[in-house]
Each structure stands twice: as C-alpha cells, then as structure tokens.
C-alpha cells in the first residue's frame, strides 16, 4: 500500500483542505523569511486569527540589531494580516509558560497553520505536541519556508549541552538506544552523548539531494560527529523537505530497536518535525535531543527562498485533517 504523504508547496495544499477559518501561528523574527507566510497565505486561505511569537535570545552584542530587524519584520506582518497577536517570551523560558499560549491558540478556530521556519525547535516542537494532544484542534498544517541563503561562517554561538526538547524526553529507561543524528551545519559533542546514553548504534540522516557548497558543510559535520567509539554506523539520505520520508524511515529504525531511539535534531526542520512525530509512536522509550544555541547572528539567514515560478518556497505538511491524523 502506498503511504499517503500530504505535503507540497503551501499554496497548493492549503486550498485542498476545506477549512473556512485558519488560525496562523508564526515567528516574529529577525529573519526575513518570517514574513513569507503573511505575504502568501491570505491569497489562498482565510486567516481568522494570527499569533506571532517573539522569542528573545539572552542579551548579547547582537541584541540591538536583532531587535531592530525583528521590529521591522513585525511591522511588515502587521500590514499584511488583520489583528496580529504578539506573544513575547525568552528563549530559555520554561516550557510550562507555553502551555496557556498553546491552549489559547487551540481555542480559536481549531484549524491551525504553524510556520516553524524561524521559531526555535524547543518552542515549535512543543507547541505541535500540544496541538496534536488537543481534541479541539481538528486541522493542523505545518509550514516551512526556505531562506534565500545562509552565510558562511559560524551562524550561532554558545550552544547549551545536549538535552531533550521539552515534551520529547524519555519516560522509560532504554539501556542501549540507537542514536539518529539529523545532519545540518552545526556540530555538537556526539561523543559525550554516546558516553552518556550508552548508544549501541549510530545513524545519520543526510539531507539529499546535495548541492554545492551545502554538501561540503554537511559532510564536514559528519566528519566532526564521527564518534570515538567503534559503533555500527549508517548514513541515510533523505530529501531535506520530505518530512514524511524521514518519518517513515525513523519508524522503521524505531521498530528495529523497540523504540529505544535518541534522535538529535541538528538537520533541516522538516527532519526535526519527523523526529517529533516519530517520538509519539515510541511509547516513551525515545527522546528528541538538541543543543540549543543561545546566540544567533543577525544575518543567520538571508532573504526568502523562491520556487522556479517566483513564488515563496514555502512547504506545507498536513498532519491532521477533520480530526484525523495523517502521519
């Protein structure tokens, strides 16, 4: 049986879901791409309410520049959407602070589009978990917009030690979990993780197809992550935007190791989303891990990616429709 994988450019998939009023959740960010959804969405869907989450990094030498860019982007969003609700919270806020916000969003139309492009993983993975757990959320579409480009050089600094993403920790002890690392640009100490959790196998999800020079940075990361210990290694190539393919593979890996998985979300956000969804089926034996950077460069990404027809490169992943989960 062919699996149904409802993902496509956002402007194509959204009209196919017969929803009258959407609630939009987005990031109020210094990255240009946070405005893409406000630009493109009103043309294909009716937005009844919108919530933009402004996440403040700890104070750094970039704070002023980031605040200016964020204000500018927020102004753009406000001109494009009616009645924008802005919630401001610190990056390191305890996850329980997001609980009432998630409830408030879920209490709106029940049909949510969440743009994860510029939100931190610890926030959007947690919110999606809350939405999926909420019986009042009947439709859920996740949107991701590619930037035009990433600059070279270090994009983030001062990453916290690896820990599980809120709401995605291990419940039941797993003595020898398999470690799956999503390959991106930023490294962290996988050796420490292998040491701490006694991983028995290591697998990389490598974004495919490669394009120069992104693949060079991806392979550099693979090189950095190669562990000191000799443990079996597999590199799996999966399209960077194909969340459903990543989810399918993660489930296969999970079934091979009885759900005892450590998934490290360093790679593309669609792969991180797959990890969050795979986690739900592992009955508490898995965890999704991340090393949260505390400082982002103001030019972390530039511009908004475009498709060949000139439209914004925004992809939509339908996770729930009419109360039925589609993953």
């Amino acid at each position, binding site marked *: 049986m062919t699996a149904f994988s409802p993902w496509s450019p956002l402007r194509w998939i959204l009209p196919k879901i017969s929803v009258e009023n959407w609630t939009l959740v987005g990031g109020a960010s210094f990255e240009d*791409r946070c405005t893409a959804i406000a630009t493109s969405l009103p043309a294909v869907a009716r937005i009844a309410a919108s919530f933009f989450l402004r996440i403040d990094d700890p104070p750094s030498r970039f704070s002023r520049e980031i605040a200016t860019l964020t204000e500018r982007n927020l102004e753009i969003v406000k001109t494009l959407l009616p009645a924008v609700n802005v919630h401001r919270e610190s990056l390191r806020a305890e996850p329980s602070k997001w609980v009432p916000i998630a409830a408030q969003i879920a209490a709106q139309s029940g049909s949510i589009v969440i743009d994860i492009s510029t939100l931190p993983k610890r926030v959007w993975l947690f919110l999606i978990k809350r939405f999926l757990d909420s019986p009042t959320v009947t439709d859920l579409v996740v949107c991701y917009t590619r930037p035009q480009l990433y600059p070279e050089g270090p994009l983030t600094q001062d990453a916290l030690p690896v820990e599980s993403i809120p709401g995605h920790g291990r419940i039941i002890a797993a003595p020898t979990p398999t470690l799956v690392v999503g390959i991106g640009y930023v490294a962290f100490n996988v050796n420490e993780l292998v040491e701490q959790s006694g991983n028995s196998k290591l697998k990389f999800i490598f974004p495919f197809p490669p394009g120069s020079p992104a693949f060079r940075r991806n392979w550099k990361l693979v090189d950095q992550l190669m562990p000191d210990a000799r443990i079996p290694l597999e590199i799996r190539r999966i399209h960077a935007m194909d969340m459903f393919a990543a989810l399918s593979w993660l489930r296969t890996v999970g079934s091979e190791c009885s759900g005892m998985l450590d998934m490290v979300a360093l790679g593309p956000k669609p792969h991180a989303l797959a990890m969050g969804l795979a986690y739900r089926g592992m009955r508490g034996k898995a965890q999704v891990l991340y090393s949260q950077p505390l400082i982002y460069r103001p030019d972390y990404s530039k511009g908004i990616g475009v498709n060949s027809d000139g439209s914004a490169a925004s992809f939509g992943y339908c996770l729930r429709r009419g109360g039925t989960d589609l993953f």
Partner: protein
Amino acid sequence: MQRHDNPFHDLWLTEILTPEEFVRMFSPQVALNASQLFATGNVVVRGTQGSGKSMLLNLLNTRTRIAYERAGVDYPGAEAVRPFISAGVHLIRAGASKVASRLAEQPEIRRRMWAATTFGDYINYCLVEDLLENLLYLASEQAANGALRSQIALDWNANTQADFVRRVALSEVWFGYLKHCTSVTDILAAVSARLTGYRGYFNFNHELDASIEQSKTAIAQPLLVIADALRSAHVVPNNALFFLRIDQHEELFALEQTTGTGSIFRQVINSALSARDGRVSFRIGTRHYSWNDNVQIWGSGAKLENMRDYVVIDLDETFRRRENARSGRAFDAFAEDVFRRRLLSTDFGTELTEDQKENPLFWVFGKTLTAAERACNIGLPTKPLVSIPPDWDPRWKSELEELWTSGERLHAKLGEVWLRQAAQQRAGVHRDRSLVEGHPWRGQKYWIKERNEAALVQLAGSAIQSLVWSGQRNVIDLSGFNILAFMSICRSIWAAWLRYVQPGDLAKLLGPPQIPESEQSIGIAEASKIWFDKLREGFDGDKRTTFVSALGTWFAKEIREDRSLSNPGHNGFSIMNREFARDCEMVRLVKSSRDQGDLIEVEHTTKSADQVPRTKWYLHPLLCPTFRIPFVRTKEPIYTNLAELEAVFRREQLGYQAGARRKSIGSPDQATLFGD
C-alpha cells in the same frame, strides 16, 4: 584488534564499556589514590572533565565488582573496605534537569519548596530503584554462583525477604505509597511506576498523580529506611555499608544557572550529606566550581563543612601530587598503566617483552629531547637566528653566530637574550665584549632553565617553524594531569604514525612501534588543534573558546615580544583572591573554563611586596602547541586584574565578530538546501 587499528581510537567512554571491558581497561592507579571512596562517610570526587570521576564511581557498581571477581583480578581497594552495596544515579541520564520544566505552573510563593521536594523525591526514587535492582541482581548471582560472597554475603530467602518487605512497606517515610506492597517485586514496580509518572509529567504527557504529589519523601530518608530494613532483616551483614553515587552533580549547577532557581538543587543534595548518618553515605561526582562551599543546606541556613560532613577526593590535585623523586607524579604511573592496558588489548599485546611491559611509554615515544637538542631542529645550521643590533660589539655577533653554526643554537639564542637583559645593558656589556669573560649565562643553571622553553618559542617564531614536541616526558606533561588529554595525544600520534608506516613494515613489526619524533610532533600538533576545537563543546562553549583564544594570543605576544626574556612566565595570569571573590561575568567565565579543564588553576605564592593572596591560571598544556607558547610554569605570571582580563576578552570577541562578518562578506554566499 588488528595491527592497523589505533589502540587509542576509543578514548574514554566509560559508560559504554561492559563490566568485563571495564576490568581490562580500568587502571587501579586511580583507586590507589582514592582509598576514602571505600570508607565510611560522604565523599566528593572532584575533577575537571575527563579526569576520571565517572570511572572511579563506576568501580563501586555491583556488576563491575562481579566482573572483577570473575576475571580473577584484584578489586582495587578491596582490602580497605567493609562489606558494601552501592546504587547510583547519573543526573543527566536520569533527566534530573526536567524537574524544572513545570516550575512556572506552580504559584510563585511555593515554587522553591515545590522544586526542592519534587527534586528530592525524584532522586530518592531513582536511587531506591537502582539499589533494589542491584540487590536483586547480586542475590541472583550469589544464588547461581556465589558471586561476591566473600565480600558481602546476602541472606536472601523467603523469610528475610518477607521481613524486609514488611519493614519497608510499613515505614511512614513513604506516606503510604508502598503500603500495598507485599513483595520486593511489588515495591520495585511501584517505584518504577512513580518514576514513569514523574517523567510523563515532566514531559507534559499528563498531570502529576495526586498519590505522588501527596507522598513526596524527604531527601535520603527512603534510602535510610531501605538500608535499615536490609540490616534488620539480616539480608546484609550488620556492618554493611551503603554507598549512594550521584554522578554529574555539575548538571545541577548548570540547571540552576539556566532556570534562575538559585542553588536549590545543590542545596537538596547538601541536605542529604548533612545528616552524617552512618547508615548510608554518598559519593558525589562533580567539577570544581559546581561544588561550592557557600551553598547552603536546604531547609537550614547552615553550610556543609569539609572534613566534617564530607571528604574530598580531588583527582586533579591527586595526580598533580609528586609521589617521590624516583617515580615522579602520581599521574605518570596512571598514564603509563592506562597506556600499557591499551597496548595489551591489541595484537601487540602478546608480543610485549618484559621491558616493553615495564616501560611501554618509553619504548613507544622514547626520551624527550633536551631543549638544546630541540633547538637543533630549528632553522638552518648556516643561517644563525640571532639578532644582534649593529651598534653592539661586532665580536658578540661573530661569537654567537659561531655558536649557532657549531651546533650550540640554544646557547647562541640565550647569549643574545642575556645581552638584552637590563643588567648587561646598564653595564654596557653588549657594546664591549671585553667586559666579561667567556659565556657568563652558561653558569646560571636556573636562569637557563627558566628561559630555554621561551627561547625555543622565539627561535621557532623566527624560523617560521613549529616547535618539536616528542618523547615520553612531553607526552605526559602536555596531558596536564588529565587522562582524556593523554589519550587524545596518544591517539593522534598513533594515527600520524599509521599514516606514514608502510604496510610491509607494519606486518613485519615485532612488538609495539618506536614512533619517530617527526610523527610524534605531527600527532601532538593535531591533538592540540583537536583539544582547542573541543572547547566549543559544553557549557559556554563559544565564550570559552573566545576567552582561551584571547589568552593564548595574549601570552604568545608577551613571550614573542619579550626579547630579553625578562618575563618568561608570562604564559599565565594571576589575580588577587579578593578580586576573584566577586560575582561577575569574568569570574564565572574563568571558573567555567577551569571546570571544563581549559585552564589549570594553581595557588600563587606572590612575589609582590603586598603579599596579598593570589591565584594563578594557565592554559591547559595541550592548548599550548596551538598558540606556540611554552607549557612549563616558570617564574612569575602576568599580574593582572579583572578589568584587564575583560579588555583582553572583549578585544578577541570583537575580532571574532569582525572576522565572522568579513568571512561572510568575502565568501560566496551559501546556496541553501534547507533551513535549520
């Protein structure tokens, strides 16, 4: 392991060693210097990252002890102990930091209390679960094959079990949570269910069950009940000790910093230690500044007292200590033993001669070159690297250049340095060769000793060359008393050798190789670079990297530009203790760098007239090759203050930022494949 494998490829992954591998790889040298670990009372095992804390604590693990017995290997420290059983919690693996994830849901007025009681209860149940599992495992092994019976004989029959369960279940310490338990299996299931309930709650899967919320136990109390019950029911001997390990204690320090909860979590642990109840004792694995004597005991304004409430095993200090003139420092023997064990686990293991087994480090790395010998590897014999200004007596120039060409390159350089020093300059010796006879600096043994490493650095700088590092002494000294650094150096050297050795030569090799100096030097340079890159890992990674980079650049400049080598000790800095007592970002950064092992901290006996107590810090020796500075700690460090240190740090930070920007502007932009 094959010949073409690197025996040091797996560095120090204690957690993935099976008990059998642990027995093979663990060096008892660590335990020789840590006999308190097996004695009564609380013990704090303190050390930097990679110093071997977790490995030492794992020694207490029941499975490890059984593996020792099965292998017929003497259990380290066995003769010093009373019967004991141990249980432990690894705070990272137990997800202790998640306790704070739902703090904000509590009313502010009871938040601290809720955090302390929930954390204490969670840790209690983690330890109880592990203690019961250890007990059941040991009982089953003793029933099957008498394991550890000579060390701790369990009486685990139906009667003792029933007695034990009754005593535990009836105890008020659980607030009724275990009252329905009629067997150990019941107790274990209830304990596991409680932990699962907690984790599900911390994970926002559900609310906390009221039965848990209303039955939170005080820290350590359940363990006391279990220990009492096991003794009273005669399951364990009356004099049996219970060692409760809490590893990665520094995780609590990090948690408190990120959640702004003061020092609540460490206070709770302190509360456990403060009881000084002989029925159980704790073994805490922590880093230096995470264990802060100023942290109070939860529920009391008091503080723990060293030697009264606990004793400290400071692994860094232990290994730094000189045993005796012949055997050198404790770390030498530890490193040698670890190295020997690695070799024995390879194909070469069966081929080792007695001499190679006795002195494997010397066999593989050989003798470290003297400073004079190392100088002969710098520059060309025909091109003296001595810099004599034109207004000096030309006889000095010809004489020092002759020294160079005749092979005495170090003395040629030291002669130049000596002439540049203030005393000679004042006396005009540099302008008139006839004012002194011979080479006066040659008789000044300590003057030379204090300067020859810095002189080598200057020579290598003039020749645009790297310094040569090789030999047993360099390998050990560059490790900075840290076994992880030692293993990293060995791995890189071995890898460099494997790249150059011909397959035929490898096959013909009898016994372990004697690695040439050139490959050793390449390996050490690579290990230094890896060690520097590793700085980014862990807490404050980028900030620490920038800080270390700032210090390295600062020291290198000081040494290079000090042409008269008046301050050869400027590869470290010293700050007054009273200034370092301040609570500010720079102090936190220095402490964090010290805890991560980037800096080595030493008490400073000041030479300044004020005699104000000071502390000095040096870069970890393995970082020194990267910055091309000497690692030896000689003479006086840079006397500085926090303001200057901050200025040095900020300059580097601005440079880093500008560099990153320049790089992004100068390089072609990254065509995106996906977002992060």
